[in-house]
């Protein structure tokens, strides 16, 4: 199985780990992430203002390009996923904007693409059962907090990957990998997102809430699908530890990294070295490596 | 004898004559509600009240055209809401059956409107009448049957 794949800017640079581990895992599971021959930035935010059609041009370009390479497109970064999927819906449902956009990008795209998040590919195309079978290094006894964030879930009407209030897709994957997902209240709350640019205080507080909420119920590891979540959480960890007595920072990694780990990939290839809080001690004392 | 032609003076241009066959329970009451709510709509329509759209004989419609109607409207309860439980379904079924006959008799189907208007849908009634009137206006007068009227009205029996 070959699935057209849109990495997005971040995965080519600071979030390389997310990209490589995903490709590796895909291979292990018997499908190929076929990177689009040509792609550009998705715009990193879906324009909430109805008259901002310009903001849709970039993702539209990506989509029209992808359509030429197949009828589905998969992506890893929550933000890319959100932007592409919503833009696609606009093109599909809104004839007026479709016409304008096609004018801009000099294409004739109709929104017929099926946008899948990597998690959806695993759930719906591969199947978690099959993933389970492929596991070589079960993550026995690792209490993992699955952090969804916002963009993977909302708005439900447009994204619909899972129940927006009580999603389980992430936990189901973790179970398949032999880990023990912990249910924490803030798993669908926001990390502070782009405020990282000019409002560190807010980011520290929000990311702090998320991490504290997870560790509060015993999470030893937090996994995410979004490079920005990962960045904000890790970066805030030290400050949060100062501000909140009794808070112990835990590693924050991409879900594909522990997926690769469970599937028996070479640990060095997974890009754990990129993360600030080292995951190795945890893996060692759980005797996973 | 009818005064529609004079009426043209009021709104200017050609004013079509529209006959509406409506059921007593939903659409007639809906039209009443439009009145009690003091809504305004085009004056071109003349209502004939029947107990149920199921009572409507296709011949009524042909007769209406023969008598100078430029458009005919049939409206009753929504499917499922019929006061007589299934009357409107009969009407709908019959309607599908006679559509072709109507076309055969030279009636442009765009002059014939079928709709559901409930007792509470005054607004829908108003829009319906306005839209139908405008559409018939576009089509212009219905000439095909002109003159037939002079024939003795034994057809009525």
């Amino acid at each position, binding site marked *: 199985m070959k699935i057209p794949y849109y990495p*997005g*800017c*971040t995965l080519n*640079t*600071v*979030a390389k780990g997310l990209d490589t581990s995903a490709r590796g895992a895909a291979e292990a599971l018997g499908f190929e992430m076929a990177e689009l021959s040509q792609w550009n*930035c998705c*715009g*990193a*935010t879906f*324009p*909430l*203002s*109805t*008259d*901002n059609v310009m*903001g849709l041009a970039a993702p539209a370009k990506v989509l029209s390009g992808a359509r030429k390479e197949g009828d589905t497109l998969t992506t890893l*970064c929550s*933000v*890319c996923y959100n932007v592409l999927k919503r833009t696609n819906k606009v093109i599909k449902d809104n004839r007026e904007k479709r016409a304008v956009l096609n004018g801009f990008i000099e294409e004739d795209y109709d929104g017929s693409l099926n946008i899948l998040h990597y998690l959806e590919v695993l759930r719906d195309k591969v199947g978690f059962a099959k993933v389970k079978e492929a596991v070589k290094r079960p993550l026995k006894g690792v209490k993992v907090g699955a952090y969804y964030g*916002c963009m993977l879930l*909302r*708005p*439900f009407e447009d994204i619909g990957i899972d129940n*927006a209030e009580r999603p389980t897709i992430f936990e189901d994957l973790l179970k398949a990998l032999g880990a023990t997902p912990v249910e924490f209240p803030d798993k669908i*709350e*926001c990390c*502070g*997102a*782009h*405020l*990282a*640019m*000019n*409002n560190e205080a*807010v980011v520290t507080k*929000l990311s702090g*809430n998320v991490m504290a909420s997870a560790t509060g119920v015993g999470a030893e590891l937090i996994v995410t699908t979004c*490079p*920005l979540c990962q*960045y904000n959480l890790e970066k805030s960890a030290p400050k949060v530890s100062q501000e909140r007595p009794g808070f112990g920072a835990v590693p924050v990694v991409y879900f594909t990294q522990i997926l690769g780990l469970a599937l028996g990939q070479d640990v060095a290839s997974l890009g754990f070295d990129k993360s600030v809080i080292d995951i190795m001690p945890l893996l060692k004392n759980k005797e996973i490596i | 004898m009818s005064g529609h032609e004079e009426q043209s003076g009021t709104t200017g241009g050609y004013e079509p004559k529209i006959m509406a066959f409506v059921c007593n329970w939903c659409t007639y009451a809906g039209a009443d509600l439009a009145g009690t709510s003091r809504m305004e709509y085009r004056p071109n329509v003349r209502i004939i009240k029947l107990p149920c759209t199921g009572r409507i004989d296709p011949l009524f419609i042909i007769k209406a055209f023969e008598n100078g109607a430029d458009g005919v409207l049939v409206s009753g309860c929504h499917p499922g809401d019929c006061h007589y439980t299934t009357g409107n379904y009969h009407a709908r079924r019959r309607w599908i059956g006679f559509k072709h006959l109507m076309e055969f008799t030279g009636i442009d189907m765009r002059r014939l409107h079928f709709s559901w208007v409930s007792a509470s849908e005054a607004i829908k009634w108003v829009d319906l009448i306005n839209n139908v009137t405008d559409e018939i206006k576009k089509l212009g007068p219905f000439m095909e049957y002109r003159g037939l009227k002079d024939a003795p009205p034994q057809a009525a029996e």
Partner: protein
Amino acid sequence: MKITLSRDNIESALIHQIERISGEDFKRCYQCGKCSAGCPVSYEMEVPPSQVMRLLQLGMTKEVTEANSMWVCVGCLQCYSRCPQSVSVAAVLEGLRQLTLRKGEDHQQIKDVPIPFLKKAPQQAIVCGFRKFVS
């Protein structure tokens, strides 16, 4: 404080402009406050989401455009996702941002963005930040 209400304010061109840009009808909001309750940053806002809606209903554009609310909103859509009336305050705040940015008034001077951030942060944060703070 005391305000004087008039149809001119309530139905002002500016109000309608914000409604157009955001695609939201302010009258839909019945002030249940569920947005303010769930907003992760409303503690930081000078005017919390539900009050933004209220002030706009009253035509008090100055109060909301001068508040920091629009710049603090992270666009997580929790307000919209839980709103019983399907109103997106996030979209309204985006509308307010656009209003300012389209006048060429940046909220963030590019030169002031800390270099380590530009070096380390995910591109998406930078792109997104510029889109929301820079005209």
